[in-house]
């Protein structure tokens, strides 16, 4: 039944694209996030739906879309350089077969991020892209949230819609991405026009946000907790009633903490005590290995270069015997072929210093561009453009959460994050077009006070 439902939905999405070609772009985004071909076992698995949607989106844009006023932004150029550079490192990769496999989906994510801004010509298109991203992540987190409430979850135990631990269905990755989605869901609830603001829209948006907050609890991914803290601080900046916001956070925290599963609080406690935690110890050892590797391989080892690493470190074991007596022992841990568990080290190890520099440039420019947009329309926005500053704010918050979460998860090429980049470029380009086409200054003109009429 689920197979039929998803097959009909994907088919309907693509048919709708025949009427409105931009819907092909949304269909591709949906397929890339949800991966319905993984959820089902039937027809969708035998057809390359992602590739079909991608070809339809690009083909329809080339054939039918208005390309007037399109300008390639500097960030799209950076993406192009990164794409070419990654292609070159793949040709000389240390593990050619594995590198080619990763390149098979990385190039699509990069090309789509370059292509997306060209299609986001209207405000409604930007909104619809945000909506599809939020609802697509909702497909994963709603079930995850309900299961967390029912069972409490557990590290590596929470069964999401697809149980293969890849893409967005991996615990740490979905915890980070779910927190990125929260500001976007709140923006939609406040400024949406497809689903206009109302109590039902707010109820659903708050439900999605709650489910997103439950993902770090359910997956017990420490990265998620850090992302929640970062988002909490960032939202403090944009909220008007800061006292009320801090009070609400404090009350929510006091209610939530006693209800959290013990396994969650114990695992979060290892953030401070990393020396006794094997997962954290391995990360630090792999990061150290990557720094040494980059000294001899400044242009990286190509995708999946981590497969050649071999790390060893001492894990500290504390055995408490009571009466304040604790025996400290060390255990030698040796591991091979461990993943980077960090986007920064993933870039450094796989693409070397030039790749890391390009990736950092891409994201730093994104944060800066959103800050410019945010400030430009923060005060006295032109009529009909009140949504710009909050959206720039939400996209900036999502990106900063991604950059912080990415320090502990290898998501440097996660397609969802490149959709965020594409959205940012699209918003900047759209505002640029509006400003260029405006006959009158695109700002509210403050009128000078009129002199009092003569008596």
């Amino acid at each position: 039944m689920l197979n039929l439902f998803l097959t009909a939905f994907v088919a309907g999405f693509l048919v709708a694209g025949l009427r409105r070609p931009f819907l092909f772009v949304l269909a591709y985004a949906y397929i890339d996030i949800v991966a319905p071909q993984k959820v089902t076992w039937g027809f969708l698995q035998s057809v390359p739906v992602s590739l079909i949607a991608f070809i339809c989106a690009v083909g329809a844009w080339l054939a039918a879309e208005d390309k007037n006023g399109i300008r390639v932004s500097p960030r799209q150029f950076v993406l192009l350089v990164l794409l070419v550079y990654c292609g070159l490192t793949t040709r000389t990769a240390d593990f050619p077969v594995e590198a080619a496999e990763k390149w098979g989906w990385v190039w699509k994510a990069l090309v789509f991020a370059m292509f997306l801004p060209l299609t986001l010509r209207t405000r409604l298109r930007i909104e619809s892209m945000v909506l599809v991203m939020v609802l697509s992540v909702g497909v994963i987190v709603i079930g995850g949230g309900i299961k967390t409430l029912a069972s409490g979850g557990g590290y590596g135990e929470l069964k999401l819609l697809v149980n293969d631990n890849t893409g967005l269905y991996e615990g740490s990755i979905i915890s980070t991405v779910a927190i990125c989605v929260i500001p976007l869901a709140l923006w939609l609830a406040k400024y949406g026009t497809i689903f206009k603001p109302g109590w039902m829209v707010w109820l659903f948006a708050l439900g999605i946000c709650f489910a997103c907050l439950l993902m770090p609890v359910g997956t017990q991914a420490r990265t998620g907790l850090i992302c929640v803290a970062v988002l909490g601080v960032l939202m403090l900046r944009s909220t008007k009633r800061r006292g009320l916001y801090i009070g609400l956070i404090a009350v929510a925290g006091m209610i939530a903490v006693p209800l959290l599963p013990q396994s969650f609080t114990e695992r979060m406690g290892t953030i401070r005590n990393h020396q006794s935690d094997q997962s954290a110890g391995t990360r630090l050892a792999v990061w150290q290995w990557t720094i040494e590797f980059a000294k001899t391989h400044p242009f990286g080892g190509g995708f999946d270069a981590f497969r050649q690493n071999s790390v060893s470190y001492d894990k500290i074991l504390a055995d408490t015997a009571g009466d304040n007596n604790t025996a400290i022992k060390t255990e030698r841990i040796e591991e091979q072929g461990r993943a980077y568990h960090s986007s920064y080290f993933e870039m450094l190890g796989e693409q070397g210093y030039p790749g890391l520099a390009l990736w950092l440039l891409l994201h730093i420019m994104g944060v800066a561009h959103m800050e410019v947009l945010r400030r430009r329309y923060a005060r006295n926005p032109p009529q009909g453009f009140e949504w710009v500053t909050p959206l720039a704010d939400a996209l900036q918050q999502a990106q900063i959460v991604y950059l912080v979460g990415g320090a502990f998860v290898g998501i440097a090429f996660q397609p969802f994050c490149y959709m965020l980049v594409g959205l940012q470029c699209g918003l900047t380009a759209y505002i640029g077009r509006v400003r260029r086409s405006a006959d009158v200054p695109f700002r509210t003109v403050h009128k000078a006070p009129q002199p009092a009429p003569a008596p």
Partner: protein
Amino acid sequence: MIDILTVIVPHALMALAIWRLTHRNDLDDDPALPNRRAQLMQRQRRAPSGGKPRA
């Protein structure tokens, strides 16, 4: 049961959103930008009177 619910609710909302989008003119023509399609149609309408007579 939970998996069915988590699939159906967001997909139903997406289907409704797609339906609404197919009926929105501002999906392709933003009201804040000059409507190039309308300008083009206006030009085409004027063309028969102003254009060169065909043989």
